[in-house]
Structures are given as C-alpha cells and as structure tokens.
C-alpha cells in the first residue's frame, strides 16, 4: 500500500499551494486579498525550494553534538531564508501602497479604485 503513495507529495503540495494562490490573485478584486494571495504564492514557492533539499533521514546542516549522519542540503535552506526576507519586504511595501490607495479613493476594490484606463 505504501508504494502507491507518490514520493513527490511535498512537491505536489507546493504546486497546489501555488495554484490556489494564483486563483486568488486572478479572481479576487479586493486589494488585501490580492496581497494575501501573493504571500501565499511566496509560501508555495518557498515550500518547493526547501523541500528540494531534503535527504531521507537527514539532520539539519549544523554541526552540533548530534551524532554524525546524513545532512540535508544547505543551499536550499539559505535560498529559502533569503526569499522569505525578500517577501517580507515586498509585503510591507504593498501594504503601504494599499493604505495609500485607500486614503485616496476610499475603497480597496480594485475595480472601484482604478483611475487609469487605455
């Protein structure tokens, strides 16, 4: 029974998380929901990155008193760390602009607050 479970389950989960967030980004009109969608998209990509580096039975790539054994790959962890911080920065700026838009137009609906067309 165990063999039928796909080993790539974490990767699929990451892809589906990306899919759900893309759904939110494409179909939701509220700016805050859009921002949440982008945060989820980032989480999906980060999940994918960090699960790429996993090695079965591996420990964290830090030499401590833990007995020697396989270690999981360290570069994906560093990349994920970088990407998380980048996303925090992007989110902060997006929220600031959303607040400013709300101040100007009184609405967070992307249809109503839209001024420019053509």
């Amino acid at each position: 029974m165990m063999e039928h479970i796909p080993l790539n389950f974490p990767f699929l989960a990451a892809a589906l998380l990306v899919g759900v967030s893309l759904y939110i980004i494409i179909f939701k009109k509220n700016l805050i929901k859009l921002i949440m969608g982008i945060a989820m998209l980032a989480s999906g990509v980060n999940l994918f990155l960090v699960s790429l580096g996993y090695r079965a039975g591996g420990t964290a790539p830090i030499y401590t008193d833990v007995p020697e054994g396989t270690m999981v790959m360290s570069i994906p962890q560093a990349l994920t760390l970088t990407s998380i911080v980048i996303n925090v920065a992007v989110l902060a700026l997006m929220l600031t602009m959303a607040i400013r838009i709300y101040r100007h137009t009184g609405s967070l609906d992307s249809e109503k607050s839209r001024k420019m067309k053509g």
Partner: protein
Amino acid sequence: MLTKIVRTVANQLIVFIVVFGLYVIAHGHITPGGGFQGGAVIVSGVVMLLVAFSSQELKKSLRERVLSIMESSGAIIFIILAFIGIGTVFFYNVLVGTPIFGGIPDFGPGPGDFWTGGVIPLMNLAVGLKVIAGLSAVVLALALFSSGEEVEE
C-alpha cells in the same frame, strides 16, 4: 492602549524577548538562527509593545530618525565587513585564523566554539541591528499612519 495588566506584563516580557533575540543573533554561526531570525524575534517584542501601548506612546521612546540612522549604520557595517576582504576578493572571510573569531572547529560534530566563524558573527550582528531598526521603523510608521499621523522627513 490596553489594560494595566497587559501593559505591566508586556513591560516585563520585553526584557526576555530582547535577551532571547540577542542570543539568537550572537550564536548564529553555531546554532540555528542568525541576524534575520533574532532581529525578527526582537521586532515581535516591539509589536507586542505596540499592541499593549499606543503608537503615540511608543513614538516617544523610538524616534524614526534614530531608527533610520541605526538601520543605515547596520547596512554600512555589513558592507564594510564585505569590503575588508577586498585585499583578496570581495566577501573574502579575512578573520578566519586570526584571534578575533578566528577559531576553526574540528571537522564533524562537536559542541561548537563561540570564537569561530571569522566575519560571520560580526555580519550577523550587523544584519541583526539592521533588521531590528528597519522592521521596527516599518511597523511603527504603519501604525502611526493608520492613526492619522504622517512620518516626518
């Protein structure tokens, strides 16, 4: 501003949060963690204070101007640490083998020595300073702006 109970508890807790954050920053090269993580821990304490007290209250002790300069200096320290390697190559870890953080641990598992890592602990400190100041400034500015006040230049 929340009730007196919350404010008192927050006032006591912030000490522990800051100490833990500093621990995470300082031991970034031997245990999980580092400048970003420890900085985020301390900023979570700042957010707690922001919830317990009002943003106006907090503004008296955390000036944005000061935070700005702190952040810039953290960034400048980081880039200077990268620049001191330029005798060899940019980002070269010059301190490995010197008395300051120069220890090289034996290969394989071990308890970890604080005086290792070359420029890595120093960079962690610089990044920590930057993250604390930067994220506090963002959180504070957003809170102040939502309560109707704009940031001074």
